[in-house]
């Protein structure tokens, strides 16, 4: 076959793509970990949360989170009997040191929060450079070496789960302790939770107890009207929770 100028021009883009593919290799998160065999989520059992702040402290230590910033935090809700639509929400220091006593009437409870690792994440859709993404196993991550720090994703997250790390000037968020779950461990927050209010779940594992829990309990996600495909499931969540 003669290589004409036209044929060469047609072949060059295909050759460039093929060369990229060959150079990419096939990196896996961990030698025995298969990205396609997992679909990570979390279950939060609100009636079990005691607001001790263990999860917030553990997250900060495990992930070197700067002081004053939180990848996970706890909110204390106070819903007065006559003010059901307007709950009072507080989270002093993210609940890191627990909460001061408040012996008041009405409905009071704790709500732990973190990135919801949405399937259709608004944060990943707005990133102009592809620095934040949903992994094949369902975790939303940030590529620090590629992030520009433009803050689009911080504004886009409807749950307020992102911040700009003042040391690196890049976007930061909960990684669902990706460095732990790919090694067969649970997340740091789930590991230290003394009341079992937080449970890591693998929705692709048919033996995971979450399937039975989801069948037998009334479970919700935060802001379902946003249609983000949030994967942090809340059991016993009051209608006043935002």
């Amino acid at each position, binding site marked *: 076959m003669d290589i004409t100028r036209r044929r060469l021009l047609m072949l060059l883009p295909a050759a460039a793509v093929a060369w990229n593919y060959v150079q990419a290799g096939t990196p896996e998160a961990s030698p025995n970990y298969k990205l396609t065999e997992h679909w990570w989520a979390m279950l939060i059992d609100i009636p079990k949360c005691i607001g001790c702040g263990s999860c917030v402290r553990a997250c900060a*230590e495990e992930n070197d989170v700067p002081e004053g910033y939180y990848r996970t935090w706890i909110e204390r809700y106070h819903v007065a009997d006559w003010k059901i639509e307007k709950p009072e929400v507080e989270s002093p220091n993210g609940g890191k040191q627990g909460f001061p*006593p*408040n012996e008041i009437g009405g409905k009071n409870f704790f709500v732990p929060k973190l990135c919801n690792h949405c399937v259709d994440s608004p944060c990943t859709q707005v990133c102009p450079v*592809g620095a934040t*993404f949903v992994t*094949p196993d369902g975790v939303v991550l940030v*590529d620090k070496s590629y992030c520009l720090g433009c803050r689009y994703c911080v504004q886009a997250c409807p749950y307020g789960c992102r911040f700009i790390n003042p040391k690196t000037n890049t976007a930061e968020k909960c990684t669902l302790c990706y*460095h*732990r779950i790919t090694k067969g461990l649970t997340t740091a927050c789930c590991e230290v939770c*003394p009341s079992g209010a937080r449970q890591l779940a693998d929705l692709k594992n048919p033996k995971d107890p979450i399937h039975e829990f989801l069948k037998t309990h009334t479970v919700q996600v935060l802001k379902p009207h946003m249609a983000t495909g949030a994967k942090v499931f809340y059991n016993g969540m009051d209608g006043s929770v935002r």
Partner: protein
Amino acid sequence: MLIALVAFVVLRAAVVPRSFGQYGHYRGAAIPEIAARPIAFAGHDTCEACHTDVVDQKKQGKHIVVPCEACHGAQARHADDPASVTPPKLDTAVLCSRCHEANSAKPKAFPQVATADHSGGLTCDTCHQPHRPKIDMQPETKPATEAKK
């Protein structure tokens, strides 16, 4: 035209990271990079592999459900090198109240006390063994209401 196209292909190959587009519109190599971060919390299975005596104690009480590092903090370094990295001594006055200080937002069934009234200034481990917190009562010291049951 041909030179411009070749220049574009060469430049693109040089600028775009090799693994970009492997799984989607992002750098595929970022996934193993993030996964490679070292852990700080060893996990209760690791603790229990050596501290079997503590596990036996915990099995006798409700604290069996409390993971070791909830109180003792991150211990992966201790697990890696138990001889030279020793966990610090804990202050029960701070630790116990983090969970058990009364708060109206806590679940009603969860054991709670107002520590100032409850302990009379004593530290918690004066009476309670943290791994097995329930106090053993001799029959003669049991409160009257409990003795009737």
